[in-house]
């Protein structure tokens, strides 16, 4: 075999592939023309090969809704059942690229019964295209989709006002819909909303500007998608969060912690700590297949080697030393219930970061996705969205979704059926609910000492540090007493009293403080009957 097992260097050339990637979702009401729009995008960017076009011609005659014309929607209706019924059932992912950018499109169903599929598609998207039928305007579904898209953190929306050909390309219709959409979504926190009048069927304002909308001053859809800036907010370059996904121990001489960097960047020599334990150490090296790197950035899948023989396992999170990510068992958030079985609080597993834990769910309100009004409730129907409180059996490293798209997201799994029953985002962590009762029992003696010695944020301080500042403080008191009283035994007594009283008073004060604040911390299990305020 004279195969080029190693390619000649001359054959390696600059890649012509687009450097950037845009993931977007299309959503809209039934029959708004989502599938047609995606078919149009694929067709206009040359992503449909000739043999697929040939079978499209055959399918258009068989299942098509456009008479003799090509039914572009059939390009994306993948399952046989979908083509027969002419609807999209599941999320379809499509790929196309232009010289400027590569695109991954999630084509998601319009029917309310498939809201969960839509939410899934939206969870990874940088941008959403929301279709509105120019003849129908903003519908309940438009509001619902906009709400879900905003809940999973999409900040940029293109409202494609479709079927403009059927309203005579009337600028008044376009402007009225744009105004009513803005009004309807005022509270959803979108950073940017762009309105484009289109006809997916005819291709108006898709690949190029249409002669039929001379009043439209904006850009064509593809042009906009190619250039829109969706880069995430620059994280603090000194910050790092990497949930440990897998411990790499190929032999006794190597131990690395593999995972995907959720936030910030890692670099060799960086001071880090491991949560929940709070153990501090430093990054010794960053291992890749090609050897070692000096740094790695957000979204990279890496393996970190730490300086000390510290213990960390799947689910722990390696963070920069100054990171304040709370460790807690209770958090509040919003979730979308995805199971046909109505939501109840028991028998659930929460999956978050790289960990899972048994969890109790208490539902507080259901959010009406059409009016965005909230009603107290204790259960949610399929596709219902509600505010909830979740109590995990073990402490989790948590973050709010607005700050951290990895640690702030969660799903719920039914322990018996293994079904994924909900997806949600964390709005508020309850750090006041630090693991006390059951966790304290499991703590080892050094940890007990640390709890007595350490300040409130015990996770950020080592035992040695905590001891050292208390000793220093006691020595200063001794010295001051010695200077003031000129008597050695009084000075020593004052120093010893300072050291001891700090421990005792601190513990006593903490208990009193806990009791006082507990009045505001309603136990979720106690209000499972819907006291949800």
């Amino acid at each position, binding site marked *: *075999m004279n*195969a*080029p*097992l*190693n*390619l000649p260097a001359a*054959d*390696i*050339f600059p*890649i*012509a*592939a687009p*450097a*950037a*990637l845009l993931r977007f979702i299309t959503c809209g009401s039934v029959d708004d023309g989502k599938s047609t729009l995606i078919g149009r995008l694929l067709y206009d960017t040359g992503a449909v*090969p000739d*043999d*697929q076009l040939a*079978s499209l011609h055959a399918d258009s005659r068989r299942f098509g809704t456009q008479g003799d014309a090509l039914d572009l929607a059939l390009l*994306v209706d993948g*399952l046989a*059942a979908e*083509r027969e019924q002419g609807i999209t059932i*599941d*999320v379809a*992912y*499509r*790929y196309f690229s232009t010289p400027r950018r*590569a695109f*991954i499109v999630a084509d998601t169903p319009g029917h309310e019964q498939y809201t*969960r599929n839509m939410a*899934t598609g939206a*969870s*990874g998207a940088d941008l959403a295209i929301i279709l509105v039928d120019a003849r129908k305007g903003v519908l309940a579904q438009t509001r619902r989709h906009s709400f879900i898209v905003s809940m999973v953190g999409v900040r940029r929306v293109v409202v494609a006002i479709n079927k403009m050909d059927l309203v005579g390309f009337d600028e008044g219709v376009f402007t009225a819909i744009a105004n009513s959409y803005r009004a309807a979504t005022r509270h959803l926190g979108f950073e940017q909303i762009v309105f484009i009048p289109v006809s997916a069927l005819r291709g108006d304002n898709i690949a190029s500007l249409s002669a039929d909308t001379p009043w439209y001053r904006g850009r064509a859809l593809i042009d906009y998608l190619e250039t829109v800036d969706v*880069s995430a907010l620059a994280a603090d*370059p000194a910050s790092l969060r990497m949930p440990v*996904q*897998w411990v*790499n121990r*190929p032999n006794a001489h*190597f131990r690395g912690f593999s*995972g*995907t960097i959720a936030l910030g960047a890692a670099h060799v020599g960086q001071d880090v700590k491991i949560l929940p334990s709070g153990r501090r150490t430093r990054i010794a090296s960053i291992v*890749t*297949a090609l050897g070692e790197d000096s740094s790695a*950035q*957000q*979204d*990279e*899948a890496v*393996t970190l080697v730490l300086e000390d023989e510290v213990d960390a396992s*799947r689910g722990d999170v390696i963070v920069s030393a100054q990171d304040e990510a709370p460790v807690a068992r209770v958090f509040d958030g919003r979730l979308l219930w*995805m199971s046909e079985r109505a939501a109840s609080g028991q028998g659930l*597993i929460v*999956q*978050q970061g790289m960990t899972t834990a048994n969890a109790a769910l208490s539902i507080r309100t259901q959010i009406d996705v059409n009016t965005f009004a909230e009603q107290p409730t204790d259960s949610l129907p399929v596709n219902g969205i509600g505010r909830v409180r979740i109590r995990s059996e073990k402490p989790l490293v948590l973050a709010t979704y607005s700050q951290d*798209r990895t640690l702030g*997201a969660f*799903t719920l799994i039914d322990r018996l059926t293994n079904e*994924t029953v909900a997806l949600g985002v964390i709005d508020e962590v309850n750090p006041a609910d630090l693991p006390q009762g059951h966790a304290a029992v499991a703590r080892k003696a050094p940890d007990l000492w640390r709890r007595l010695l350490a300040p409130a944020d015990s996770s950020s301080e080592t035992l040695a540090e905590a001891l050292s500042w208390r000793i220093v403080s006691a020595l200063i008191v001794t010295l001051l007493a010695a200077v003031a009283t000129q008597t050695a035994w009084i000075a020593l007594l004052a120093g010893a009293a300072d050291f001891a009283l700090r421990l005792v008073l601190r513990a006593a004060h903490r208990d009193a403080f806990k009791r006082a604040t507990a009045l505001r911390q309603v136990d979720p299990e106690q209000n499972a009957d819907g006291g949800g305020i």
Partner: protein
Amino acid sequence: MIQLTHLQKLEAEAIHIIREVAATCENPVLLYSIGKDSAVLLHLVMKAFAPGKPPFPLLHVDTTWKFREMIAFRDARIAELGLELIVHTNEEGRAAGVNLFASGSRLHTDVMKTQALRQALDKYKFDAAFGGARRDEERSRAKERIFSMRSPEHRWDPKSQRPEPWRLFNTRKRPGESFRVFPLSNWTEADVWDYVALEKIPVVPLYFAKPRPVVARDGMLIMRDDERMALRAGEEIEMRSVRFRTLGCYPLTGAVESNASTLSGIIAEMRSSRVSERQGRLIDHDGGASMEQKKQEGYF
């Protein structure tokens, strides 16, 4: 903040998926079918566990009709990387005389590929099998999850798939159930070749054009790789400069006329091509929803 490139993002996503399987499944296996997608998958698996080796074996389902160059490449590559490879052939099928030419492509595919794969997965009790399939390849694949659940009978139910929001994959399963896992789900054919070039990944030489003995049959150019392929009346073997866009069983895999003998040549040809890569695969054309049906029966 510097943004990762398109390929770096796809690479990181794939490595994340691969490690997730290693961390949560008991007995994974990598379905290695020798082609370019498998080559990329193998490369990613090596990266995911460096400096160690992948903590699972490779499995090749050998229908006995693969190109000889594929088998030679497979053995050289596995030896070079020092990995464990299981080769499985449906011996019952072979004993029953299932033959590509005599039995037809549909029966051959069912017995020697689909059944053989199920046999191997059952025999070794694998609970997760990596495959190199991509969503851009075919319509029903566009709707498949990254972690695709299979019943104990290996059936795929497209209507009850688990949602996969963010990077939160639900890998819980009951005894007997298993996953097909597709780390390259979001890659396109162009991404695969760009990555092969960027990372200098070795691929089977059949992808590069050179003069090969081919027969024009049923509108395709079939390379006569051994004596088992009898010539029909009027057929003649010609030497033509051809290459392959996908690799499978040689009598079912059409060659394309080409002079692209380098990676850059292949990539340039692919970018200007107006036909899809699976067009050269006979088994995909047994009816509109053919792949969907085969997948429900347990085909990859």
